[in-house]
């Protein structure tokens, strides 16, 4: 009946939770999100052909998007980060903390693109498949996200090629 569902959950649960944490920023919410996404996947398990990962990631990001909209408290992601003082971020730790804060400040969609591309190492095409949009839209979202994160402009140029 399960057709490998239990095995899939056992093997992939921890990784899915890590991805969900990067989307939500909270471990408890991430675990709830994964549980909910896996329940949805189970309901459709018999219809999934081949690798379930793209399907499960799609459920995960869609469920997160709907939770995010429901729980949105009116915070508006800032377009620009405050410019740090000249000597700030000499400390590696501070720099990384600032980058994490910036990631948390991205829109839900931009964050999803960044997590799928840089954490899950999905290609732009694969991201588009998971998010249900065109590769062009993924590139646009990724470009905006990287600008806001102040990622090296050369990275942007390579990506936009």
């Amino acid at each position: 009946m399960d057709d490998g569902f239990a095995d899939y959950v056992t093997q992939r649960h921890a990784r899915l939770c890590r991805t969900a944490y990067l989307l939500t920023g909270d471990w408890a919410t991430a675990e709830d999100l994964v549980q909910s996404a896996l329940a949805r996947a189970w309901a459709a398990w018999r219809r999934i052909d081949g690798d379930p990962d793209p399907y499960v990631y799609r459920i995960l990001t869609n469920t997160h998007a709907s939770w995010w909209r429901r729980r949105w408290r009116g915070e508006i992601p800032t377009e620009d980060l405050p410019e740090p003082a000249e000597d700030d971020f000499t400390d590696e730790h501070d720099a990384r903390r600032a980058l994490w804060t910036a990631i948390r400040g991205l829109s839900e969609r931009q964050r999803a693109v960044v997590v799928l591309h840089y954490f899950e190492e999905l290609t732009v095409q694969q991201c588009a498949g998971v998010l249900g949009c065109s590769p062009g839209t993924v590139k646009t979202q990724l470009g905006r996200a990287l600008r806001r994160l102040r990622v090296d402009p050369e990275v942007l140029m390579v990506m936009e090629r």
Partner: protein
Amino acid sequence: MTYTDDDLRSLLRERSERGPTRGPDVTEIRRQGALLRAYRWVMGTVGMVVAGAAVLLLWPDAATGPRTTQVAAAPARSVDPVLGDLPYLDERGAMDAVSMGSSAIGEDLAATGERVRVRVVCEEPRSWVVASGKGEGSVGRCGDGVWTTVIGGAPGKVRVWVFPPDAAITEADPRSCAVYHAEAGTCDGRYRATDLLRYDIALDLAADLGVKPGSWRAGVYGDA
């Protein structure tokens, strides 16, 4: 200060390193999944009942559709090599009618007047039928081999598709889909019935299926 994409990768790895505090509860996940599946089934059934009631309200004769098909009144004929014993429609008074020997083909029928009645007889019971015209239309199953509907809005022409009973079509509400692709008109990998009113989506399904044997006749009538 700027970052490299390696900074981004290592930060995402580092921040998510801790991992979940508890292991997966597969039993609970299955229980939630079963509840979700039951909820979708109930919603689908309620949807069909509501749609049926709406048709009866709009056109009370719909309930007697199969009886009033007047198959008996059809002219004497020899068995068609393609259509076999498929009953004839009552084509007297039909504005336009068509007989086909394969499913998954969109056929246009001329229709004049504000509201028109569409009647389809299918060889395979429970075949899916889509009839649309100028933004209006309906989708349903050829219950006992006959399906009828009414299309308003002065359609001018009605496009009819017949898909096999086992085509990947669902009547689920988009809100109950785990993954709903509005653009592709799919819910959890199946085509959503009402989205098939869109030509591009019906065409996609037809392309997925290919042309299959499946005889049907369709007629468009006035005086709805």
